[in-house]
């Protein structure tokens, strides 16, 4: 077939570009189901909130519940632990944001912004580095230098408000959305 070059776009040029565009958009649309099928199914997303009975938690103790496949830490802090957490200056925190789902995104990471009641610390028990579960520190078995948690995988240390203090983790332990149904009953999620 003979081809002629013309300075003006021809009908053939238009058809060429239009066909190519339709093919590209069609390919992208066809690819999306293959990508999106990897996302959580509606059954997984429907995982409802849990309720937790905290009446048996002793002072200074931590209990672990399971929430959305992750461990959920509920720690009943001693007055000393609360005082330690409150004494920390914001300038000493690697992550200055509260990471509290119950507060605005930019709330500062003061101890008060990390809980609803000072005595009860409720946290997602997943290290913000690479997802291991940190070990709780107790006076009998101290973990790390800050009295909170130590992640054994890569050495991240958290204080008694669950804030990152040392190590590779970039963020404070997350505070999930939760509320007190009664003084001894929590609703998480």
């Amino acid at each position: 077939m003979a081809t002629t070059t013309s300075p003006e776009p021809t009908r053939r040029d238009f058809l060429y570009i239009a066909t190519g565009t339709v093919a590209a958009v069609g390919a992208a649309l066809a690819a999306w189901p293959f990508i999106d099928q990897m996302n959580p199914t509606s059954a997984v997303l429907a995982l409802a909130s849990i309720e937790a009975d905290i009446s048996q938690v002793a002072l200074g103790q931590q209990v672990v519940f399971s929430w959305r496949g992750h461990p959920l830490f509920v720690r009943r802090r001693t007055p000393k632990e609360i005082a330690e957490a409150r004494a920390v200056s914001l300038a000493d925190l690697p992550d200055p944001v509260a990471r509290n789902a119950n507060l605005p995104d930019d709330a500062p990471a003061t101890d008060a912004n990390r809980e609803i009641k000072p005595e009860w610390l409720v946290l997602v028990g997943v290290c913000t580095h690479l997802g291991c579960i940190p070990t709780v520190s107790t006076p009998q078995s101290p973990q790390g230098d800050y009295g909170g948690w130590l992640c054994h995988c890569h050495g991240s240390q958290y204080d008694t408000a669950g804030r990152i203090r040392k190590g590779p983790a970039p963020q404070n332990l997350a505070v999930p959305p939760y509320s007190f149904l009664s003084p001894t009953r929590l609703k998480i999620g």
Partner: protein
Amino acid sequence: MSGPSTYVPKSGIARWIDTRLPLPRLMHDTMMTFPTPRNLNIWYTFGGILTFCLGVQIVTGIVLAMHFVPNANMAFDSVENGIMRDVNYGWLLRYIHSTGASMFFIAVYVHIFRGLYYGSYKAPRELLWILGVVIYILMMATAFFGYVLPWGQMSFWGATVITNFFSALDQIIPHLGTAISTWLWGGFAVGDATLNRFFSLHYLLPFIIAGVVGLHIWALHVPGNNNPLGIDVKGPQDTVPFHPYYTAKDAFYLCLFVLLFAGLVFYAPNLLSNPDNYTPANPLVTPPDIVPEWYLLPFYAMLRSVPQKLIGVLVLAGSLLTLVFIPWLDTSKARSCRFRPLMKQFFWLFAADCVLLGYIGAQSADASWTLGGVNVPLVWLARLGTLYYYGFFWAIMPLLGIFETPKPLPDSIAKSVLGAAAE
């Protein structure tokens, strides 16, 4: 393939096939008459050994997949009870497969270090080398997916840590990394959906590897083999036909390799694996020390040596990406370390560095050594090791090519091998 084909069909049927699909011709030219340098040593037999390893993994893997159940509640039991106790010879097939992964990596590390020592990545073999890096990365991905399948504690937490690498992207674009992790998991954490897709990918990737191996061999057969002298083949006097010379040599060393393989399978099948993986996966308890399989330890040590998440992940990714650039980082005119007195020393230091990083990767995050009364945290040694890993490729390789004077290269392979008789 280099040179014109020498294939002559020996029968009417062979001629009939040759004019329609010249597959016998291809096999003849690549595996029979292919001119191969006459001085290849033991370290050049690992290409064949690796092909054997891939075959063993595919065959045992297909059989194991007939008995494995990719379900978070049943996977551990289907492996430890079903395959290891109930299935006829299931224990043997599984131990061949799990030991086979380690043997595969032993062989690939010999193969890679051989390539580094003799400068096999240098022109005109850059693409050959890069395809090798692609195979190596695919191997690591396949091994990782496979390690998750028995759904033990190390499976689960290994999967958690590795997939969380992507969450580091949160530090560049907020929520992007978390979205990717969730997409990879198919949930809010590693779980049933993750196991299922990893099984699917673990079955797929070996065939992709086989395809890239095909390209790797194709790219090898254009310039032909490098050799321990690192000089080009100058004529037929420098080569011997692949068969029977190297088929025999490869077969002999393959037998020795299989001897070691069988020794591990029958006498120490768990030597290179972690006992924690005999505990079923528990999403609520992380084992006190999580470590990857031995072949990933040096990279793990580099990751842990950095106290910042995003940079740590980038250092890890960069250590692999660096391998792609080696053909252009090495500026020396001589290929082989045999004629590079300084490079040879840096090379062995690099090998020792990889072993040191591997050792540190296996220790706990806060371990330390006492050297001459001084307490040295291992993380500092890992930092030094990481620095040397990068320094070796990005500083020593380019600079040494300029400042080092290589020893005189021999005139030809034939002269070097046969001496005066080659005249």
